[in-house]
């Protein structure tokens, strides 16, 4: 972003850059920067909180009015109110952590597929209420995506799902789509869950999270270089990789 700000400004277009990692802006000094104290992925923060988002935008755009020295970074003073967990939020499905451990891959695949079906009415509810889903990178229906991931768990050689997309890429983007399906479904029960509540639920308390962790393990053991790379970096966030495997 900071580099793009430089390129655009050099070409004669003024920029106002929202900055999440202050250290980067300090090094690259975009012309006008607003550092926001929000988590990665949430530059405007607080979903469906129009007044808060408007304050963020106004603070960023007002940087365009100021004729101070280029490279100044201003700090937004408010924390994201959605960082706080919602004690009243309850997930649509819940699996005890102990039940997730020790399952055979065949059993895991079966439970995962059943869970995807259980979530369908929740996802449909969210879609009806919001008019929107972010599922669609692969372009296949969710059951097909779930079948694809399940096939990895049962050791069946998966074939490419879409045109000339390789098995590795198909796994990678199917995982993204399935995560979106789960996390969108989790909004059906109402409340204002924090991102941490949502991702903790997915990775710790669903067959879906367990399935992706197992798919990662299988990808890492694969003879396919591309599949191993996908398993290493693109299925499971670093913070969720089992601690024994993490570099830190």
């Amino acid at each position, binding site marked *: 972003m900071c580099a793009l700000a430089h390129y655009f400004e050099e070409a004669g*277009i*003024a920029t106002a850059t929202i900055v999440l*990692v202050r250290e980067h802006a300090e090094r690259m000094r975009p012309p006008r920067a607003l550092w926001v104290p929000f988590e990665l*992925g949430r*530059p405007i923060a607080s*979903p469906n909180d*129009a007044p808060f*988002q408007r304050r963020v935008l106004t603070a960023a755009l007002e940087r365009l009015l100021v004729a101070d020295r280029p490279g100044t970074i201003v700090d937004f003073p408010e924390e994201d109110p959605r960082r706080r967990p919602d004690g009243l939020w309850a997930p649509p499905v819940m699996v005890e952590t102990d039940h997730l451990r020790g399952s055979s891959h065949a059993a895991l695949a079966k439970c995962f597929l059943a869970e995807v079906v259980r979530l369908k009415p929740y996802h449909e509810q969210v879609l009806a209420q919001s008019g929107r889903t972010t599922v669609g990178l692969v372009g296949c229906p969710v059951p097909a995506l779930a079948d694809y991931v399940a096939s990895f768990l049962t050791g069946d050689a998966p074939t490419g799902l879409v045109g000339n997309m390789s098995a590795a890429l198909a796994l990678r983007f199917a995982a993204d789509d399935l995560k979106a399906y789960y996390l969108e479904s989790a909004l059906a029960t109402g409340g204002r869950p924090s991102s941490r509540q949502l991702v903790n639920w997915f990775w710790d308390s669903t067959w879906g999270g367990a399935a992706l962790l197992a798919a990662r393990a299988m990808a890492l053991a694969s003879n396919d270089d591309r599949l191993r790379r996908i398993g290493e970096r693109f299925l499971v966030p670093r913070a969720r990789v089992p601690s024994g495997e993490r570099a830190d």
Partner: protein
Amino acid sequence: MVRLTDLTPTQQEHLRTLDCPGFDTRPFVRGRALKARRIAVVTSAGLLKRGDPLFRGGDPGYRILPTDISPTNVLIGHISVNFDRTGFQEDWNVVLPLDRLRELAHDGVIGSVADWHYSFMGATDPRAMTATAAEVVERLKHDGVDAVLLTPV
């Protein structure tokens, strides 16, 4: 905040040591009052229209998002899985604040919202983006844009 200390040590190290290019110049464009400005959003979130080609690692390209696009037709296709997507999944304005910008235009805070907005995919060497950034500049100018809001992830 993204205080680096909130992240795992590996993530901290990765972000702390990320290669950030330096620049010899400090361009600074002055312009009209904010209430007269035409604003576009450019994001590094790897957003794309439903059906667009997916971003690959190191991709210096961009996707074009028409201002009247339906929110359900905007997907997030960034290659990294290490940032939160639940905010965007709940409300596209968390990354692509088009509804908020339209409200600001309606209220006279800004002049207008551009007809087109753009997304790059931020896990790319910025030095590889100079040509595609130049393309976007020409598109922005053709659209009459005189100010860009840049949103990272």
